[in-house]
């Protein structure tokens, strides 16, 4: 049945190049990736996993309020974000730790957010226009669409892919049920925005399977909105890279928005607050664990005769990154108390000023009475 497989896949679980028919339009782009770039992808993926595992451990040890693991989704995140160009803006949901690392975010800034030190974490302007995490499901799809509308209003397409901008927005299978996501599809198609909707279908919205969100394969929804939809094996970093790059370049060239559905799996819990054994089977988990995206790329590189020392180096770096994260987290300071009032408004606001003054006096009064 391989000939009717709608999924773009280039490397199989065994690491062997075995493209599906759907992969045909993207093979040239994938073939252009040399060994150095593929080793770079593996490095990103291994580093992402190391950060993810360490952060989850830190949460278990009481250092973080919460952690949303990215474990298992590394190929989807690295392949797509490495396909974005430097000038592109990226709007994440809240599990895109791999994308954050690719755009230069220090993992401790993600962890500061999950520790309750900040709602934001990093300055998008200093991190490849990687926007803050958005916790309300689907909201960021509209922000991304508005931003992409702005790109189109700013200037016509120049035709130079190194200059023309596009937007990449991440969301999950649960978000496809949200009104905002569907409104974003409508606006994007209507204004022919330069953007790619990157749907990581990790099969579970906390405890609810994707079959509850949709009776139809999600990529097929795109056609109803009037844009192309492509389903890709989200654990195949080559396929993800090639498809995302092609559709982002289409978008920046003025050919409108597109939807990518990356089939992947959330090996970890939704967050450290839930227990996946209550809603999914060991068999399902084992099946997807066997399809680990890191193993797949590593097998492929081994077949290309990449030496063991390369993998050892990557693993050693990852261990350093993890211990560096641990060290930094333990040194994170609580936010200054002024943060409570400082950025509610840009312009002076009498109520905020009065409450801030009151709190200062109130706290000072403790000292006086003793």
């Amino acid at each position, binding site marked *: 049945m391989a000939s009717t497989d709608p999924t773009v896949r280039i490397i199989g679980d065994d690491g062997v190049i075995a493209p599906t028919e759907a992969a045909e339009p993207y093979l040239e782009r994938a073939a252009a990736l040399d060994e150095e770039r593929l080793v770079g992808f593996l490095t990103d993926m291994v580093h992402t996993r190391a950060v993810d595992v360490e952060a989850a451990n830190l949460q278990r040890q009481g250092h973080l309020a919460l952690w949303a693991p990215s474990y298992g989704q590394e190929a989807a995140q690295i392949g797509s974000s490495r396909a974005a160009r430097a000038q592109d803006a990226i709007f994440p949901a809240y599990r895109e730790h791999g994308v954050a690392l690719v755009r230069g975010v220090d993992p401790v800034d993600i962890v500061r957010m999950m520790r309750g030190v*900040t*709602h*934001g974490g990093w*300055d*998008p*302007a200093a991190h490849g226009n990687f*926007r*803050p995490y*958005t916790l*309300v499901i689907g*909201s960021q*799809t*509209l*922000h*991304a*669409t*508005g*931003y*992409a*509308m*702005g*790109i189109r*209003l*700013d200037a016509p397409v120049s035709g130079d892919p190194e200059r023309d901008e596009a937007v990449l927005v991440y969301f999950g299978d649960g978000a496809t049920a949200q*009104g*905002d996501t569907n*409104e*974003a599809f*409508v*606006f994007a198609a*209507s204004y022919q925005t330069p953007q790619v909707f990157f749907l990581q279908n990790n099969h579970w919205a906390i405890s609810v399977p994707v079959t509850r969100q949709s009776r139809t394969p999600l990529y097929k929804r795109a056609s109803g909105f009037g844009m192309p939809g492509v389903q890709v094996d989200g654990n195949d970093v080559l396929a993800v890279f090639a498809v995302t790059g092609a559709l982002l370049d289409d978008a920046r060239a003025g050919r409108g928005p597109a939807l990518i559905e990356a089939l992947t799996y959330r090996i970890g819990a939704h967050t450290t607050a839930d227990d996946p054994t209550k809603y999914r089977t060991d068999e399902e988990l084992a099946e997807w664990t066997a399809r680990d995206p890191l193993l797949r790329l590593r097998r492929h590189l081994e077949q290309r005769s990449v030496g063991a020392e390369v993998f050892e180096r990557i693993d050693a770096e990852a261990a350093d990154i993890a211990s560096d994260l641990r060290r930094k987290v333990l040194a994170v300071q609580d936010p200054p108390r002024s*943060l409570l009032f*400082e*950025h*509610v*408004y*840009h*312009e002076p*606001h*009498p*109520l905020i000023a009065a409450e801030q003054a009151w709190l200062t006096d109130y706290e000072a009064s403790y000292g006086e009475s003793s």
Partner: protein
Amino acid sequence: MTQLPLAKALNAGLRRAMEDDPKVLLMGEDIGRLGGVFRVTDGLLATFGENRVLDTPLAESGIVGTAIGLAIRGYRPVCEIQFDGFIWPGFDQITSHLAKLTNRLEGRERFPIVIRVPYGGHIGSIEHHSESPETYFAHTPGLRVVTPSTPNDGYWMIQQAIRSDDPVIFFEPKSRYWPKGEVDLETPSVGLHVSRVVRTGSDATLIGYGPMVSVLLAAAEIAAGEGRNLEVVDLRSLSPIDWDPVVASVEKTGRAVVAHEAPGFLGMGAEIAAGISERAFYSLEAPVLRVAGFDAPYPPAKLEKLYLPDADRVLDAVDRTLAY
């Protein structure tokens, strides 16, 4: 000086803001070719083109959510919500994101978005077309909430709101869209967040905003015929509240009645009454009284006169406060 109705004064204010700043753009349902269901944006598409006046798909969350993205890109979007009762599909984007993004980003970016909302009753319309939802927004940190009561304020306040680097929810009293008033196109009105005494008096203070101000002035006129001298304060800004003129007035009169079309329970009147009692307790001769819409859903239009506070109901409260 020129005579304009509020709807046309707002139109002139929007036009001037768009001329002053090329980053100002308008978005909403039917605002382009039709000029808005109240014609507030009439003619602006013809002048500024469809890159500045966007007839959007029919989705309020989509309008507000994409406006946020446009603001990130450096634009100053002015969104029109067609009617008060249709703002709720956009409520999540307004309260979860628009109100909080400045805070979330720790001041690194600005979200200078204005959301225009025609509000209030007196237009004999069907359900969802006559509501007064201002409290929900005034209760939300991060938003500024204002409402003009006159054409002159409409002309200047819309420009001030657009220049604000904070998000502003701009409530337009639709019952006041068409009566004409004097507009001074040269001399700016007072600041956006300034409340103002619009009639001086000494026996009691009437406090209101938006559509209620003309009702309070009419009540004061009737009372004057009965020998009662009432002061009227137009709040203009619901968040933040400019307390000084309110407190100064109550310190003078010793009595206050606050009125709005919105339901009374937890309405703006509750905040005003509490604020006065905290600030001017020893000046008060009577409790602050509220005159408000009932705590029932806005009724079918044939009953709206019964629902909405009118001059008689305001004067009834004046009688009660003076009887203390």
